[in-house]
């Protein structure tokens, strides 16, 4: 191998005698790889040494054959050998024996390749001249190779058809899967929407239709409306176009008489002089804006349910209005119920139902009237109706023994406990919806009128100040207010007039601080007169309290004096106080109408004319109080009555 490791040059001479071609050969693999380590280093098989190589070559020599041929036909053998050697020696400067030379086959192949190449080159050069050789295409076998064009067409068509079919099948599968996906999506949306709908509304399947129930029957209502709505699939959507934002895969169809929205308007007005224009209440407020997250069907169903409830309330109210006998009969006209809670006052309950978006063009240009709608009463009507529903189904009623009739639980005891009629009637609810709402309206009206009276008095009269503290916690039929009458600056001293007013349904009950209870009717004037009389009494009380503070002695006090001009509102009150040293006395008479009159009594010694008399011997009698003089109260300095009184008292109390 060491001999072969160098480049070998050898030349081949051919008979035709061309220039010698040198071919360089390199052995592909110099050393054999014995092992490749894990880090990539290759371990080569160490090349054979000289002695090893010689031994290897020697092993190839067949010494036994050589020695045998020498013995027998030794002459022919060497002759053959020499003879085979000779042509080979003739062929070149080959030094090795041909059988031992491994490159022999390579040399032969290369030589034949060279021969071929030379021949080709010669042929091409001759053909190029075109004189002695010419290129001709090889004529095809007409019988074997020629096929008719029709066949070709058919075969091409068939192959194309097969390919097209495959492609079409694939495309079909693809389009089917896409369509299925979309259909699934749509179906899934419908199902998920249906699930959402079912979680909030009652649904049942009848045949192939899905029906729902939006009435309050399962909550205890006895209204005969069926309240059935139908759920329909919204399929008129083009999936190719963009799906609109408010698209919903399902739609609900509500009964035609529950379309639109409705509310019950309760209002109190002054009694209308003529009844001609009744029953045409159709003013309408804008429908409330829908919340962002709610579905269209939810809004629709809720509106329909509200309409149903309003209809039920109105039906109940009108039924009661016709059946229940009252002193002043209620009028039921079209969609309005009119009754008179107080004389001169009119309570109207009307059902305002607007269907769809059709606007009544007559109504819209009208100026919107000031809203006297009592929302509290409307809400109370809804609440009372729901309470009535609840009573029908209350836990007091269910569960109950199979043999007992429906009703309040206590009613079952009525038999065995031998309840008499009064006890039974106390268990049963006699008042209907209409009566309740009329009572509530009366109370609301009375309360607002009382507030108005007190406020008008407070703004009109400054001298005794009137304060009203309304209680936060009220009943539907009762409210209370505490009225304090005070003088500014003297609140701690003069706080004797404190009134607690309990405003009921038709009457106002006043509880005075000193324990008196007065019941006033609903007339506004009564309350006003009463408060005015209390204010005048306050002034006199204030003088009494002030006298205590100033050290003056109260000589007499009367809430209701019988002297002087007769007052039309209440009674006048009077007080007389004397100064600490007794020299002066102040008399005050205050009436609601006649105002206040203040007189001061002087000691005799201060009068201009001393009556001379023989009876009075000693001078000390001149210190007694004598005549009295009226004070020009309006000219007195002072912010209010009590302040003026204090100044007067201070003026009449000389410093020691």
């Amino acid at each position: 191998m060491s001999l072969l490791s160098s480049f070998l040059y050898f030349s081949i001479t051919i008979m035709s005698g061309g220039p010698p071609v040198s071919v360089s050969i390199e052995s592909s693999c110099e050393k054999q790889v014995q092992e490749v380590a894990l880090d990539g280093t290759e371990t080569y098989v160490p090349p054979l040494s000289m002695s090893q190589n010689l031994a290897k070559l020697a092993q190839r020599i067949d010494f036994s054959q050589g020695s045998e041929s020498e013995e027998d036909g030794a002459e022919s053998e060497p002759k053959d050998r020499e003879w085979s050697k000779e042509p080979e020696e003739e062929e070149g400067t080959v030094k090795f024996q041909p059988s031992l030379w491994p490159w022999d086959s390579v040399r032969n192949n290369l030589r034949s390749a060279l021969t071929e190449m030379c021949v080709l080159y010669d042929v091409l050069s001759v053909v190029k001249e075109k004189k002695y050789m010419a290129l001709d295409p090889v004529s095809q076998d007409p019988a074997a190779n020629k096929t008719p064009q029709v066949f070709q067409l058919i075969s091409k068509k068939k192959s194309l058809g097969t390919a097209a079919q495959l492609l079409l099948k694939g495309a079909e599968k693809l389009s089917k899967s896409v369509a299925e996906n979309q259909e699934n999506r749509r179906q899934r949306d419908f199902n998920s929407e249906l699930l959402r709908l079912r979680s909030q509304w009652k649904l049942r399947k009848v045949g192939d239709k899905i029906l729902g129930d939006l009435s309050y029957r399962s909550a205890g209502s006895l209204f005969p409306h069926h309240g059935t709505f139908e759920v329909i699939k919204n399929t008129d959507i083009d999936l190719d176009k963009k799906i609109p934002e408010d698209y919903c895969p399902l739609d609900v169809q509500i009964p035609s008489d529950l379309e639109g929205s409705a509310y019950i308007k309760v209002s109190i007005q002054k009694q209308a002089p003529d009844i001609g224009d009744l029953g045409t209440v159709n003013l309408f407020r804008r429908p409330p804006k829908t919340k962002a997250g709610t579905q269209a069907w939810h809004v629709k169903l809720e509106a329909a349910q509200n309409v149903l409830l309003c209809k039920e309330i109105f039906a109940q109210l009108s039924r009661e209005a016709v059946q229940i006998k009252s002193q002043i009969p209620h009028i039921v006209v079209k969609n309005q119920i009119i009754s008179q809670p107080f004389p001169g006052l009119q309570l109207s309950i009307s059902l305002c139902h607007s269907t769809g978006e059709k606007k009544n063009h007559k109504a819209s240009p009208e100026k919107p009237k000031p809203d006297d709608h009592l929302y509290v009463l409307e809400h109370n009507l809804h609440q009372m109706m729901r309470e009535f529903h609840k009573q029908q189904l209350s836990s007091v009623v269910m569960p109950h023994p199979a043999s007992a009739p429906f009703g309040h639980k206590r009613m079952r005891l009525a038999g065995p406990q031998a309840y008499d009629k009064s006890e039974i009637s106390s268990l049963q609810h006699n008042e209907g919806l209409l009566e309740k709402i009329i009572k509530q309206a009366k109370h609301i009206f009375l309360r607002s009128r009382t507030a108005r009276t007190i406020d008008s008095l407070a703004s009109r009269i400054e001298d005794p100040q009137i304060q009203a503290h309304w209680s936060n916690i009220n009943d539907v039929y009762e409210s209370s207010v505490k009225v304090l009458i005070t003088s500014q600056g003297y609140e701690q001293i003069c706080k004797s007039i404190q009134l607690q007013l309990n405003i009921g349904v038709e009457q106002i009950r006043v509880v005075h601080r000193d324990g008196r209870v007065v019941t006033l009717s609903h007339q506004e004037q009564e309350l006003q007169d009463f408060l005015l009389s209390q204010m005048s009494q306050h002034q006199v009380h204030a003088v009494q309290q002030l006298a205590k503070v100033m050290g003056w002695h109260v000589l007499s006090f009367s809430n209701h004096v019988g002297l002087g001009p007769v007052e039309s509102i209440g009674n006048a009150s009077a007080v007389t106080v004397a100064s600490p040293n007794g020299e002066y006395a102040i008399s005050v008479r205050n009436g609601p109408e006649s105002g206040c009159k203040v007189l001061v009594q002087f000691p005799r010694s201060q009068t201009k004319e001393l009556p001379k008399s023989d009876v009075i011997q000693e001078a000390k009698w001149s210190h007694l109080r004598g005549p009295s003089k009226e004070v020009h109260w309006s000219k007195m300095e002072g912010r209010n009555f009590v302040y003026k009184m204090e100044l007067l008292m201070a003026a009449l109390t000389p410093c020691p």
Partner: protein
Amino acid sequence: MGVTCVCQVPVAEGKSVQQTVDILHKKLEQLAAVKQGSFCVDCETYHATGNVSGQPTKLLYVMHNSETPLSCMALFEGGPCVIADANFDVLMVKLKSHFQNAKGHKVECRGSRYRYCDFLIKVGTVTMSSSARGISVEVEYCPCVVPGDCWNLIREFMASFLGSSVPELPSVFAAKPEGLFAPADCVDTMTQYLELFNKLRKMQIQGSNVR
């Protein structure tokens, strides 16, 4: 529910039952009592069957009072009493085999009801098979439930319009234990009515014998 006293008023001489009732009504109206509708007390008799011969058949009386419209009282004479729901009548129909209805013995007392402050006065005609047998007067003093405390008051009030025919303390109250709180209830009222009805029934039988 107050203390009730039921007594019988004898028919005035020379007058019919109706006329005597009218006289009583007039007296009450003169007292300024207010008429408040009508009342009805009835009694049905049932024979208890299935008991051993030798013992007298027990009579069960089922009574109704319009004052307690939803109740029904069943009592044995001098024995236990049951206050039940109005369905008791239906139950009696189901117990036909044990209690037989004596249809001819149904007694009714109907009349008008007056109210005078705390008193409730009921003047009624006792009829048995649509023939008037007598007049009953029931006076109830509503505020009190102890008979011993208000008997004198009731007696005085009854004397003001009944005149001489004022009864003694009813035996039901006399039988109550003294000193203990023993309130009167509807059972006492019904017992008194039952006694009255039985008395009237016996009277008429005697009367019929005479005739």
